[in-house]
């Protein structure tokens, strides 16, 4: 049985006509068909297959997490199910856009938007944000924790994805909090969206671009990052 109903399939198909450059989804899975190791791997794979079939500019590559270790490492995939959304075609490029866990509920829209974003790379960020991003001195890893039933979450995830598209130093992950309880517990996630930047900068809620950037730019201040690391160790 298909996961997408006819109406949704039509809507997605129509939305994907806005793709300019081809996109490749690299899906990492394993232990399908009932294994406990990856509860939503089968559904995530089916979902990716159904979406990939809706545009000839979109392809899907399925990889096995335990076998394709090098590929997983190269794409920074350390948990599954995972989808890396990559620019394909004549000038392939990895902007660092990742989805961990099944993009269901409100995150299904985020998934579709992430494909469009990687395809046309129109990030629509303010000139001030771009100036700030140009000043970054080190890599930035943004993890946005979400649940499928959270209406505020897509905005937080898409902002992180837009930053990733705009800056080669930024990588952004959507992380479905319920499927990765060890991470929720490591980062003390009890409410979503929660954005974690370079492990120690924590932001509650879907905040506006300016506010997120203010927090994010702390990564350039090593003394401040050290203080935050110590603070997190003590709690």
């Amino acid at each position, binding site marked *: 049985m298909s996961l997408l109903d006819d109406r949704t399939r039509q*809507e997605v198909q129509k939305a994907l006509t806005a793709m300019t450059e081809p996109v490749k989804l690299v899906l990492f899975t394993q232990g399908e068909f009932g294994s406990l190791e990856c509860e*939503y791997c089968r559904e995530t794979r089916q979902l990716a297959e159904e979406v990939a079939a809706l545009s000839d500019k979109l392809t899907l590559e399925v990889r096995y997490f335990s076998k394709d270790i090098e590929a997983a490492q190269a794409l920074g995939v350390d948990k599954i199910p995972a989808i890396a959304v990559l620019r394909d075609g004549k000038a392939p490029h990895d902007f660092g856009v990742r989805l961990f866990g099944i993009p*269901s509920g409100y995150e299904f829209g985020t998934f579709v938007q992430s494909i469009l974003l990687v395809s046309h790379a129109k990030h629509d960020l303010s000139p001030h944000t771009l100036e700030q991003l140009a000043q970054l001195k080190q890599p930035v890893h943004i993890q946005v924790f979400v649940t499928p*039933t*959270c209406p*505020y979450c897509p905005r937080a995830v898409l902002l992180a994805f837009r930053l990733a598209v705009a800056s080669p130093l930024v990588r952004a992950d959507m992380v479905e909090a319920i499927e990765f309880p060890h991470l929720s517990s490591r980062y003390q996630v*009890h409410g979503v969206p929660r954005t974690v930047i370079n492990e120690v900068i924590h932001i509650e809620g879907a905040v506006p671009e300016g506010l997120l950037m203010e927090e994010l730019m702390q990564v350039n201040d090593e003394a401040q990052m050290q203080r935050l690391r110590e603070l997190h160790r003590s709690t």
Partner: protein
Amino acid sequence: MADSLELAFALNNAAPEQIWDVIVVGGGPAGATAALYLARADLKTLVIDRGLTAGALGLTGRIANYPGVPEEISGAELLYRMRQQAERFGATFLQDKVQSVDLESDPKLVFANTGTYSARVAVIATGSMGRSQRVKGEDELLGRGVSYCATCDGAFFRGQEVAVAGNTDEAIEEALFLTRFASRVHFLCPTPQLKAPEHLVHELTAQPNVKLYLGATLREILGTDQVTGVRVNLRSEGEIVLPVSGVFVYLQGGRPITDFLGGQLPLSETGCLQVDAEFRTALPGVYAVGDVLCNHIKQAVVAAAEGASAAMSIEKVLRRRKQIAVDWSK
């Protein structure tokens, strides 16, 4: 743990297809009356409202001074009649909460839980039942057990005890959602009675894992890194402490509701929206009416009148008329 995931795949937050002439945010007497006049002028009108009893009129027990309604009826009944009248002229009502807006774009975008809606004109009619004061501990423990969205965060509290503070339909619906996860839901109703339709109250009290406390004031949220409990004042018994790890807050107050505007419109010092004589805000195509303006008498009939005035000036603009035209004939 993951068995709670909702596997729905509707594209509910993609770009909107239909463009409404007018979207009214808030369906109290101000918003419902604006919709009545707009729809009657053949403008495609959508009203997005959180719930019949979520606003000032909807939660008023008895209303005796609304002209033409001499019998004793509840505020919710009066509002229901206003909405029905607007629907009869073609207005559409949607029960949903507006989370944010983009009022500078053309068309204007309204982001709600069920999707994104767009319109040529926006009317803000959200009233002034917003909270002014936070409970002690609330800000410090936000995201560490304090939440305003049970549907977002309920799954983090599987098998744990939680508290819900509020008395409206919204609070009850969120509490019902939490009963799927929490071992016990302590429902703290600040008033002696719940202010919600009977069937919802029954549904809540019929849940085996809900404990209802009437006349319960949430005084403090306890905990350092994480919520460990709440201090509650009970009208009947005095103060008690409940050991909970989550607190979901849906309390109301007396402040204009403008948080969803994200600073796109200027506010007065007291947090009210500002308009000119035709109820226009500083942004073209954006109007505001009713208690959210707070520079007038807070009465249902006044709010309704403002809705009517704004609707007529909107019609003038959308139909490119020089003057407001009153159509007596329809």
